[in-house]
C-alpha cells in the first residue's frame, strides 16, 4: 500500500493525464519525437505581414483551423485539444470531468481585425465613439465574448463538464505553473479529488510581437529561425514568441489508485515568491527566484541534493539566463555544474501563459521516458554560465525528480517539483 499523504500530512497529488500542443505538433507523441530529436518549431511568420518588424520569426501554432481566427479562438482550441488529450489519457469522461478548472491564458483584447471591421461598418463619428455606436447595434455575442476574460474558461467548463466557477489566471510567463499550483492546492485542501489545470496561449498577434519587441525582449536572429532561440549561449539576444498549450489532470493519489488509474508522475511541491525590484527586471541578487526554488523544495520535502534534473525557464534573453544561473548556483552550490539542466524553449520558443504547463508536461515525460531533451543551438557557451545544459543532443538518463522554473514580468516566480514515483 503506497503512502497516500506527503511529508506534511497532505494528500499526495498525482498526474494521471497529460496533453500538449506546440509549434512542433499536436499531442505528446509528435512533440516528444521532435523534442528528443532536437528539432526546432521556430519558423518565419506568415500569419501577418512582417513589414516594419525587427523580429520576423516565431513559434506560432499555424496548423489549426483557428490559427488565423484571432487570439481568443486559437487559445480556446489550444486549451481544448491539450485538455482532451489529458482527460482521455486519464480515462475520465471528457464531458463530465467532475473537478474544478484552472486556466492560465493570456489577457484578452478586442482583435484588430474586429476593430477594423467594426469601425469600417459605419461612417458616423470617429474613433472610440464610432466603435461604441456600432457595438451597441451588434446582434451576436461572438465578438463580445472574445473581450471577456472569463469566456474561454466558461466554454471549456461547458465542454469538459468541470465543476464550479472556473478560475482564469495570469501570472505572466509563470501562468502555466500557477494553474498547476492552484490545482495542487485545491486537492491538498480536500476541496476536490481531481482538478484540470491548463495553460494555453494563442496570442501571438502583430501587436503582441511589437509590444515585446519595443521592450527589446525578442530575438532578432531572423535569418535561420530554428537557430534563434539559444538559451545559455553567449550570443543569445532575446526570446522567440511562441504559442502552445499544456494540460494536466491532477488527482489525489488515493482517488487515482482507487479507480485504477495509471500514475504518470507526482506533483510534489510548488513554491513562489514575488519580486519587488522592477516591472521587467529581476532583483540583481536573484533572491526572489532563489526563494521560489527553495520554497518549492521545502514544499516537496526534498533537499538540494535530491533534484536530478532542472527544466529551466531558459528563455534565451540575456537577463533571464544569467539570473536563472545565479539563482540555481546559489541553491545547488557546487553540484550545479554537474546537474543536467535543459531548456525546452530552445526548440519551441516561449509559449508565455502556457509555458509553465507545457514544460511541466515535458518534465513528466522526461522522467517517464528516461530521456532528457537537449538545449539546442548551444554552440557558443556563455563563459559566465557554467551549466550542463545537455547540449544539442538528447541524453538517456534515469530521472526521478525534476525542478521546473517559471519566471515572469511583474516579479512572478513560480517553481514546481515533480517526481516519478510517489515517495
Amino acid at each position, binding site marked *: 500500500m503506497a503512502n497516500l499523504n506527503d511529508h506534511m500530512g497532505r494528500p499526495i497529488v498525482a498526474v494521471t493525464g497529460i496533453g500538449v500542443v506546440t509549434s512542433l505538433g499536436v499531442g505528446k507523441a509528435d512533440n516528444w519525437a521532435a523534442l528528443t530529436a532536437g528539432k526546432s518549431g521556430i519558423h518565419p511568420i506568415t500569419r501577418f505581414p512582417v513589414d516594419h518588424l525587427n523580429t520576423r520569426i516565431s513559434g506560432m501554432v499555424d496548423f489549426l483551423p483557428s490559427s488565423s481566427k484571432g487570439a481568443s479562438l486559437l487559445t480556446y482550441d489550444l486549451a481544448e485539444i491539450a485538455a482532451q488529450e489529458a482527460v482521455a489519457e486519464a480515462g475520465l469522461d471528457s464531458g463530465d470531468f467532475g473537478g474544478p478548472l484552472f486556466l492560465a491564458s493570456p489577457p484578452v483584447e478586442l482583435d484588430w481585425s474586429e476593430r477594423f471591421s467594426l469601425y469600417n461598418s459605419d461612417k458616423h463619428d470617429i474613433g472610440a465613439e464610432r466603435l461604441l455606436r456600432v457595438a451597441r447595434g451588434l446582434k451576436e455575442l461572438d465578438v463580445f465574448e472574445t473581450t471577456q476574460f472569463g469566456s474561454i474558461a466558461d466554454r471549456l467548463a461547458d465542454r469538459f463538464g468541470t465543476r464550479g466557477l472556473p478560475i482564469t*489566471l495570469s501570472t505572466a510567463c509563470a501562468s502555466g505553473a500557477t494553474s498547476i499550483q492552484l490545482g495542487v492546492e*485545491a486537492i491538498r485542501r480536500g476541496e476536490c479529488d481531481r482538478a484540470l489545470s491548463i495553460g494555453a496561449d494563442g496570442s501571438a498577434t502583430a501587436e503582441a510581437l511589437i*509590444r515585446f519587441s519595443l521592450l527589446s525582449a525578442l530575438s532578432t536572429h531572423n535569418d535561420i529561425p530554428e537557430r534563434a532561440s539559444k538559451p545559455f549561449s553567449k550570443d543569445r539576444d532575446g526570446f522567440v514568441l511562441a504559442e502552445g498549450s499544456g494540460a494536466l489532470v491532477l488527482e489525489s493519489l488515493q482517488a487515482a489508485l482507487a479507480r485504477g488509474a495509471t500514475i504518470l508522475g507526482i506533483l510534489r511541491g510548488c513554491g513562489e515568491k514575488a519580486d519587488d525590484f522592477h516591472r521587467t527586471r529581476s532583483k540583481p541578487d536573484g533572491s526572489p527566484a532563489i526563494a521560489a526554488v527553495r520554497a518549492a523544495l521545502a514544499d516537496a520535502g526534498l533537499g538540494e541534493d535530491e533534484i536530478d534534473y532542472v527544466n529551466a525557464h531558459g528563455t534565451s534573453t540575456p537577463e533571464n539566463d544569467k539570473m536563472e544561473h545565479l539563482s540555481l548556483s546559489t541553491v545547488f552550490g557546487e553540484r550545479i555544474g554537474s546537474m543536467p539542466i535543459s531548456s525546452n524553449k530552445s526548440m519551441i520558443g516561449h509559449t508565455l501563459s502556457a509555458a509553465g504547463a507545457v514544460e511541466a508536461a515535458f518534465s513528466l515525460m522526461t522522467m517517464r521516458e528516461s530521456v532528457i531533451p537537449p538545449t539546442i543551438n548551444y554552440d557558443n557557451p556563455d563563459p559566465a554560465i557554467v551549466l550542463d545544459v545537455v547540449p544539442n543532443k538528447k541524453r538517456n538518463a534515469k530521472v526521478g525528480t525534476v525542478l521546473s522554473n517559471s519566471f515572469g514580468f511583474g516579479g512572478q516566480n513560480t517553481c514546481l517539483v515533480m517526481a516519478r514515483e510517489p515517495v
Partner: protein
Amino acid sequence: MSPHHVVISGIGLVSSLGEGPDAHWRKLAQPGLEPVLEASRFSPYTVHPLPEIDWNLQIAKRGDQRQMETWQRLGTYAAGMALDDAGIKGNDELCTTMDMVVAAGGGERDETVDADILAASESRNDRDVLLNEKLTTELRPTLFLAQLSNLLAGNISIVHKVTGSSRTFMGEEGAGVAAVETAAARIRSGQSTHILVGGAFQTEHSDMLLGYELAGYLHRGPWRPVWQRQGLQGGGVVTGSGGAFLVLEQREHAISRGRKIYAELGPVISGRAKRRQGELDAEIAALLRQAALPNGELLTISGASGAHTATAAEKSALDANPAIAARGFSTLTGHMKEAQFPFAVALAALAVERKAAYPAFDPATEKPFNGIPRTVLATAVGYHQFEGLALVNAAD
C-alpha cells in the same frame, strides 16, 4: 486540525463617493445620498467618475506613478490603503510574507494611437501593414506594462513590498469572487496567514465601456437606480471607477498583532450557471441555500450590475426571501467589474463593525432594516457570467 477562522483586518476603498472606509461609511449612512454622476463625457452613457485623488499618499515615487496608467494606480492606491488600515504597510516582515490575489481585467490602451490607426484604415486596404507601421512607431514601450493584467499585482509588490506570493485572477466579477474565495480557503487550511485581496476598475476609458457595449449591456439615457432600469434604453449597467482591497487574516494572527478586526469572513460560495440554458434563477437559489442564511432579518449588500436579465434574476431571488433587506450599492458607485465583489464584502464588513445597517440606497425599491446586523450577505451576480456570495459575521 480544525480550520482557521478568517477575519477582515484591513479595508481600502475608492469610488466616486470618496476614499477610505470611514468616508464611505459616512456617505453611505446618509439617507437620500445622491450619486456622483458624469453624464456628458461619455454620452449617451453615464458613469460614476473617480474622485480627486492625491496619488502621492500611497505611491510615494513619481517614477512609479509614471509607469502606471490610472487603473494600476487606482488599484495600487486602494491596496496601500488596506495595508495601512491593517497596520501592515511598511512592516517588512509582514509584507514579505504576505500573499496576494488580485482580480484584474486589462489596463488602458492608448486611445489616440488607436483612433489614428482606425482613421487611417478608412483609406487603406493593407490594414495589417498599416498596423505594423503605426504600432512600431507610435506605441510607448512601457504602455504594454500598464496594460498587462498581472502588473497591478506587480506594481503592488514594487510599491508596497508585498512579496509572499502574487497571483492574478481574470474574468470580470467572477475573478473577484474567486480571489476572495481562494484567499479565504488558503487561510482556513493553514496555507497562508495573511492575504491582500481585491481589485480595481477604471471605467473612464472608451475600451472599458466597449467591453460591456459589444453586447449592449450599458444603460443609456437618464440615470436611474440599479433596480429601476428594466425596460429602459440600453442594457441596464451604469459603470463606476473604483477599487476595493481587503486584508484577510487568520484570526489568531490578527489577534496576536493586536489589530482591530472588522468582521469575520464566513462561507464564500461561487457558481457558474449555464445561463443560456436558463439556469441562472436556480443557481442563485442554490447558492443562497448553500450559504445557510441565519434566521431573522438579513442585510444584503448586493453587487447587482443593473444588467437586465442578471439583475432581474437576482432581485427575484432576494425578494423571494422576506427576511432579506437588499442594498444595491451600484446605485451609488456604479458597477466596478472585477472590484465589485471585494467592494460588496468590504461594505458588509463595515456595517457589521459599525453595528448599523445602511439606509435604503433606493427607498422606492429597498426596504428598511432596523436591527443591528450581526451577519451580512454580500453578492455578485455577474452581468454576463459567474456568480458568488459570502456571509460576513460580527467578529465577537
